[in-house]
């Protein structure tokens, strides 16, 4: 009986993770169709975006599978940190430059990056609070059992 409930729970988590992954990939697919013309000028753009999407989706699926455990929060923090560090790294600290046929282009993403970092920090703060809440609930439940 217990085994059946556990299996159902795992199947539900896997389904939820799959649906989330598919939705995220579809969003990427739609958004990519808008920015794909830029790939003509920035050859590495597709690789940068695809690497980002793959790692993000993997962390998201792992986070879903680990939901209900403390590892979910570790993975959520890892996801938020990954977004921040990956964007800082790939956008060269916020000022992205490119040389193309004697033309030097630059795009200053520092303001966007600042918003991304703030949102990521907010995500980390939220995850921390959730982790504290999870641990306190668990401790409370353990105390009640004793």
């Amino acid at each position, binding site marked *: 009986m217990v085994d059946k409930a556990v299996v159902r729970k795992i199947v539900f988590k896997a389904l939820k993770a799959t649906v989330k992954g598919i939705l995220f990939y579809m969003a990427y697919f739609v958004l990519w169709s*808008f920015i794909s013309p830029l790939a003509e000028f920035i050859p590495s753009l597709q690789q940068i975006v695809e690497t980002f999407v793959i790692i993000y989706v993997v962390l998201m699926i792992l986070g879903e599978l680990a939901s209900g455990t403390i590892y979910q929060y570790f993975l959520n923090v890892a996801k938020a940190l990954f977004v921040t560090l990956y964007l800082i790294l790939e956008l060269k600290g916020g000022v992205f430059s490119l040389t193309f046929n004697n033309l*030097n282009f630059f795009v200053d993403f520092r303001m966007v990056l600042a918003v991304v970092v703030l949102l990521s920090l907010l995500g980390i703060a939220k995850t921390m609070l959730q982790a504290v809440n999870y641990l306190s609930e668990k401790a409370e439940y353990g105390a009640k059992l004793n």
Partner: protein
Amino acid sequence: MIGIATTFFWIFLAAFLVSAAYSVKDLHFDFGEPQMSMTSENKLLLSLPINIINEGYYAIGAFNMTTQLLDFNGSVIAKGSTFVPNIGRGENLTTSHNMTIEMGELLQHSNNYLFNDSELEVSVFAGMRLAELVPVGVSTNLSIPWGAPFYNFTLGEPSHERFNRTHLQVTAPISFENHAFFDIAGNIQIKMYNSSSILTGESQISFEAPQHAPYNGYIELFVPITSFTPDGHFEAYFLTSVFNYGPMVISYG
């Protein structure tokens, strides 16, 4: 609640970035033919018409174009700047980028620009704020050909004949080609010095040389017989509405 808010902001940020990037393809810049003219202060005015059509989703802020004309040493000869604070959605804006070149300034760097064709470096920077938020820019360096207004200037060997009992009539051919992108007109003043560097005679001719046209003429001087020597030097002064230059020393004999 925080989760919903952050998700909303992430979606908003992603949508904004993607739509701003997508808008770039609906932003058109057309540069017209550069035009040259003279200002009231007799400076050369280089004018580049720019047509900007913003059919994107967002306004463009702080459009800025700066050009610098550099000599072969990298020194700035002339600078021009154009600034448009805002280009709204669907706006079709026509402006012109102007750069004033003072020939005197150019000649201070080198008189080579007067007599020899060469190249000038142009440093161009154009920048703007996409969606009034994301600064983008492009810079490049170009070489533009410079045509000398007195290309291959030659003051030929003087010939002389007796004019009267006291003076000789000295004649010397003058030729050059105006390779510049503007017409020149003015005077060439010639001073003749003998082998002891004593001024023996002077004269001037008026000339008109349209762009890319050759000029051939001659100058006549009346020199006292007693001070004439078979060798010496000329000093040439160029007096035009665009610039003055001199002396250019040319030996004869």
